């Protein structure tokens, strides 16, 4: 349904040839709007690179905000001294150096991962509901964390990291193995359904433990909301290598995703090794989402929403979509984190909750204002 009110309509002469009298003007405008939507707001490499620089600048701004703003108010002069003067000590310096900087860097890493993983996931499942968690990653991580709490008595965010990561890997391997074992291989639908089924099984395990053991629930409920706070700086270093490899795989996978978007048969005909592309992409998604979930708990909304925003800007070309999504993920995550620190001072609202409460209305407004670029 081409709807064009609200969206800026730029008619292009070659798309709206003058000599077609049987086409009504509104139809031409609708065609142009559809074209606009399909290709995104920014066209041409130069404008898109400009857009990337703009996003990078935004990332720098939110990083600065994340370092400067917190539940403890510290004036900007002190913040600057703590950053530049190694001799400056005191509580404020400790807060800045030991808490806010590691937290900001962790936010950057996790935002990059979730944004890029979301773009890959929606590309591979060709489904607007393709949340990175859908691949069984979040469910696997949750199940592993619940078992770690219940059986081994682990009870700190740093202690959960490796369990969550291991669970995420197992969940995703199980989904891929089952989703690709039917006839026809790993089709978008079989992957999505296998992911939904495995996730449901794992969440059933989680729920079964939670309703029978309230002390596990007591620890788990604080992990599952997803938060950047309370993680010491070692967590960032632990997940960094996985995220780095994941980002490389995501970029490497993006040309193949463009081909897969034409349908598997066409992609195969154009010389693309479909299985290889799926394996690379799913390894990337698993590493990125697994590492992010291990570090912060399941933060769902970023990976789901950011690719839709990015697609509205860049159109469906994954070579642009993936980096745009990654950077937008950082901006969204850190902005939500900063907001969560100031709304309920002196307490904090966890980033996962802020993301949903603020991000969802924004997302719905966007969905209504213009039809998003379809997958």
């Amino acid at each position, binding site marked *: 349904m081409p709807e064009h009110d609200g969206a800026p309509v730029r008619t292009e002469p070659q798309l709206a040839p003058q000599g077609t009298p049987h086409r009504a003007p509104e139809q031409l405008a609708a065609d142009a709007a559809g074209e606009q939507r399909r290709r995104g707001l920014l066209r041409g490499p130069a404008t898109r690179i400009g857009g990337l620089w703009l996003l990078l600048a935004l990332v720098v701004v939110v990083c600065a905000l994340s370092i400067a703003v917190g539940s403890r108010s510290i004036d900007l002069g002190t913040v600057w001294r703590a950053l530049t003067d190694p001799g400056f000590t005191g509580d404020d310096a400790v807060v800045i150096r030991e808490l806010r900087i590691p937290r900001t860097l962790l936010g950057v890493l996790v935002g990059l991962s979730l944004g890029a993983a979301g773009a890959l996931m929606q590309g591979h499942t060709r*489904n607007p*509901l393709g949340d990175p968690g859908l691949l069984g990653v979040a469910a696997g991580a949750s199940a592993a964390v619940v078992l770690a709490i219940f059986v081994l008595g682990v009870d700190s965010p740093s202690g959960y990291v490796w369990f969550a990561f291991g669970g995420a890997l197992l969940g995703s391997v199980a989904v891929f193995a*089952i989703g690709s074992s039917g006839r026809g291989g790993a089709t978008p639908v079989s992957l999505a359904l296998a992911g939904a*089924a495995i996730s449901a*099984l794992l969440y059933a395990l989680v729920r*079964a433990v939670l309703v029978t053991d309230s002390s596990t629930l007591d620890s788990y409920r604080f992990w599952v909301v997803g938060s950047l706070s309370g993680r010491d700086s070692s967590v960032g270093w632990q997940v960094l290598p996985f995220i780095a490899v994941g980002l490389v795989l995501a970029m490497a996978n993006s040309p193949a995703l463009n081909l897969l978007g034409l349908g598997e048969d066409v992609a195969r005909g154009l010389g693309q090794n479909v299985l290889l592309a799926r394996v690379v992409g799913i390894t990337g998604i698993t590493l990125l989402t697994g590492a992010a979930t291990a570090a912060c708990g399941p933060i769902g909304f970023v990976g789901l929403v950011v690719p839709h925003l990015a697609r509205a800007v860049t159109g469906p070309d994954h070579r642009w979509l993936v980096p745009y999504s990654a950077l937008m993920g950082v901006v969204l995550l850190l902005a939500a984190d900063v907001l969560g620190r100031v709304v309920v001072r002196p307490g904090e609202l966890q980033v996962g909750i802020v993301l949903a409460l603020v991000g969802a209305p924004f997302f719905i407004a966007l969905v*209504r204002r213009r039809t998003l670029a379809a997958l």
Partner: protein
Amino acid sequence: MSPTLTRPRLGPDKRRTVRVGPASGVVRTRQLVVPVVALAALVVVSAASMGRGDYPIGVLDVLRTLVGAGDPTQQFIVTELRAPRVVVGVLVGLALGISGALVQTFARNPLASPDTLGINAGASAGAVAVIVLGGSAGAGGQLLGGLGLPLAALLGGLVTALLIFVLAWRKGVDGYRLVLVGVGLSAVGIAAVDWLLTRSTIQDATAATVWITGSLNGRTWDQAWPLGLVLLVLVPVALACSRQLGVLQFGEETARALGVRVGATQAVVVLVAVTMAAVSVSAAGPIGFVALVVPQVAVRLVGGSRPPLLASGLLGALLVVAADLLTRTVLPVALPVGIVTAVVGAPYLLWLLVRGRRALT
């Protein structure tokens, strides 16, 4: 999503056409066999479920009692104590199955269901708010406490349903927009629940966790009657929409050309689906996975290009009642039924996927 719903024709087409007066249609054997078998299984499992308990009653005795020919003691036990739980289970499963089939067909997306559209999350947020904030002082707490749990859940679910419809409506409901709006609302509901859980006492958090898992414990005729009345109206409406929904699969313009009132059909389908889901959630809590998995299982059993409504409803009822029976017999701890539906349903869907007889897109 590419809505390619054709399958390659191999060999002669064995489907039979039936013509009655001006109406004609294709009859597939499995289209009839699956609902009939599901209904028979549902009756047997329900009877077995009503027979289980401290005072065991045989399946045949239960059936005899239900038609009014049992002895008074059994009559009382079955109709007053055990039947409500099973009836609520049947109705909830029926509602979830049909609702899921409607949404998945309408959105042409196998992942779309009332679960993912946020009905469950909205109802859960209402219920958890009552559990966590209901005892607290202040006007809000008093109001919530007075509202009561089922009503708050119903309100949460209905408000979410209405929001989905209103927000997704722009000169008609587009399946894509419906799904995305639902995802956004769902995220809000889940975040609200998670947030309330972190703020509550651990006792409240445990009670809330049990509720949001979905359970049939302690259900009485008080829950069964309203649910039954609502479904008595909505199920026929849903079934009546089936043909128009099928035509809509060809796209809006084709449907319009074939004489379907597109806007009206879309409105009816979406409203019926979300209302059914909301009402069933308020009766038994958000029993997850039924609405998502049952239509996918049904379409693989029955064949055809989209989830069949009646078969989905009956299989949904069967899944819920069977899962409830399992929680009370096989398992050492009485787990809420919402856990067991996933444990029973998920492996079956996985098996169907692995076997992959036909590639459905």
